[in-house]
């Protein structure tokens, strides 16, 4: 039995199959108790190797974040300037300047050694609603709303998890554990009892582009915005990845012929 050259390369297929098999089977298994039963899978525009963000979706999502989420949640890693960068909501620079100027931020000290307030600039990070964790807990009955910059990457299920939480407020099913005072029932939250009251409601945020403001739409838009916030270079990554893949596949093809040529006097 003489192996063909392609058969000889089977080790790479075996290694790739095993690696991919482990990568795809282990992620939900590592989360306690397997897949979250309340998770609703959404088909996102940024899924898959060619996925990109939907600009209008991100812009609407920013509005939901600004008007609703940002009253309790910080987003310390995102700066106003990011809003006009390529691969994001791509607001114009003028729009971003105006957005930033809508906030008063503390700066200083000035030459007199005093801190002062000034309008926000593009280089400022999104202002946080509370000066520190203690202040947030004191104001919110002991609960601490997590920083949202990386929330999508820090939760099993990603953007779909955020969407599922936002649309997961229901009346507890019959026979469910009583919800402790101060907590709320949520089908997607691990343990089902969440401190955050339902943040988003039908018709809450008025969209500038006339999109109907259903709860489903608002939840989707803000989840997509948070996905961008945690992975702002996704489009650049996908684009470069495609080029690298094409390069490597062509290179492998060329090397394949090189190997055949080099070894032709040995068979």
């Amino acid at each position, binding site marked *: 039995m003489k192996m063909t050259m392609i058969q*000889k390369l089977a080790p790479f297929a075996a290694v790739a199959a095993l690696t991919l098999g*482990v990568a795809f089977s282990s*992620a939900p*298994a*590592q989360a306690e108790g397997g897949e979250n039963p309340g998770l609703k899978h959404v088909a996102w525009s940024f899924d898959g190797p060619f996925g990109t963000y939907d600009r209008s979706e991100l812009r609407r999502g920013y509005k939901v974040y600004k008007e609703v989420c940002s009253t309790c949640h910080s987003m310390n890693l995102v700066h106003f300037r990011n809003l006009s960068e390529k691969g994001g909501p791509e607001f114009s620079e003028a729009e971003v300047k105006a957005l930033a100027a809508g906030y008063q931020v503390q700066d200083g000290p000035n030459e007199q050694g005093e801190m002062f307030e000034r309008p926000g600039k593009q280089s400022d990070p999104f202002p946080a609603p509370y000066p520190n964790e203690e202040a947030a807990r004191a104001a919110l009955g002991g609960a601490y709303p997590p920083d949202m910059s990386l929330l999508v990457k820090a939760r*099993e299920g990603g953007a779909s998890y955020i969407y599922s939480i936002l649309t997961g407020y229901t009346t507890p099913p019959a026979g469910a554990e009583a919800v402790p005072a101060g907590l709320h029932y949520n089908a997607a939250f691990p343990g089902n009892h969440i401190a955050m009251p339902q943040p988003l409601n039908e018709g809450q945020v008025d969209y500038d582009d006339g999109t109907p403001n259903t709860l489903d739409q608002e939840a989707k838009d803000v989840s997509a915005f948070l996905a961008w916030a945690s992975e702002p270079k996704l489009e650049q*990554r996908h684009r470069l990845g495609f080029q690298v893949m094409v390069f*490597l596949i062509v*290179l*492998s093809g060329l090397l394949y012929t090189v190997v055949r040529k080099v070894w032709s006097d040995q068979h």
Partner: protein
Amino acid sequence: MSGHSTYKPSNGFTKWIDSRLPIVRLVHDAGVSYPTPKNLNYWWTFGGILTLCLGIQIITGIVLAMHYIPQTDLAFASVEHIMRDVNYGWLLRYVHANGASMFFIAVYVHMFRGLYYGSYKAPREILWILGVLIYVLMMASAFFGYVLPWGQMSFWGATVITNLFSAIPVVGQSISTWLWGGYAIGDPTLNRFFSLHYLFPFLIVGVVVLHIWALHVTGQNNPTGVEPKGDKDTVPFTPYATAKDALGMSLFLILFAYFVFFNPLGLGDVANSEIANPLKTPPHIVPEWYLLPFYAILRAVPDKLGGVLLMFSAIAVLFVLPWLDTSKVRSARFRPIYKQFFWLHLIVCIGLGWCGAQTPDLVITHVGSAESGINFTVTHLARILSFYYFFHFIILFPLLGLIEKPKPLPESISASVLGTAKS
């Protein structure tokens, strides 16, 4: 590096160099004229792939270190600064983080290839031991590196691992304190881990040089396990092996690029995208995938010290494999019984990895009647698999060599190549 040299300086300048520092001769002998068995299959390209992985880790790591801050209040933010603001920082970081996983994939392939073809046997014992040493250094480097982004799993993984040393009687707690540089994991710990994470790859480079040196003294093993009997059985490293290695690397890089560009978090844990919080224990602390089999062995033992000892023994046993194996035949191709146990052992190692990723109390199946039976949990499975892991090396390795009747070995490598061509 050994044996007679075929290098001939071609002009006055290279002659002048050669009689003062024969570095061109060294490269020529090691990388061009070095005879390699002509029947090497593609499992043998993983040595070159590992060298590539090491190079990628060092280069990306050095650049990342230019932007990283080893301080508990700033580490997490500095990594995000790399991801968001440094030009191609996201690429450097994803290549480095996934590069660690790719490095381990390649090293496991390389090690199991050695186990299958008996590459650890005389005269390659030192070659094998150096390899195991590299593997241990890799695990230490990976552990230090995983702590640096200062995510939740970084912190709690470091807590679990450094606490292992506190299981040592009498001096254990003092050792943990000494490792931390304080009474808990904090700035001194992060700083020393960063320092060591920068140092270890260069230790690995040193041992890799010795590993390659030893390889060039004994020559490569090959799929038949029969030593080459002259020029008919070998081909010069360049162009024959270099061409195959290049193809192997290119194919491996496709898998690498898939993870970097299209699934960069697929091999990681979501908890590490959350900043370390010493007051909030994650529901489920797990190490990275490549350490999971050892984690399963650790947890399989009810006693902490016992678990730690058994876990370290699982690595230590690899050092003495050359002397545990009594078989005169190297390659599993000619060892019908060992061949089956080899695959069983591979499945056991993957099974241990699976156990390491699960919660120990997870019920796999219920044995016996509904009322009086017992729940068969991950811990039970991990105990059975751990037992087999050691049974394989300590009992089967010496025993099989005595009871197994090997198939007839080919005369030589070229005889085997021609033989398979005919059949």
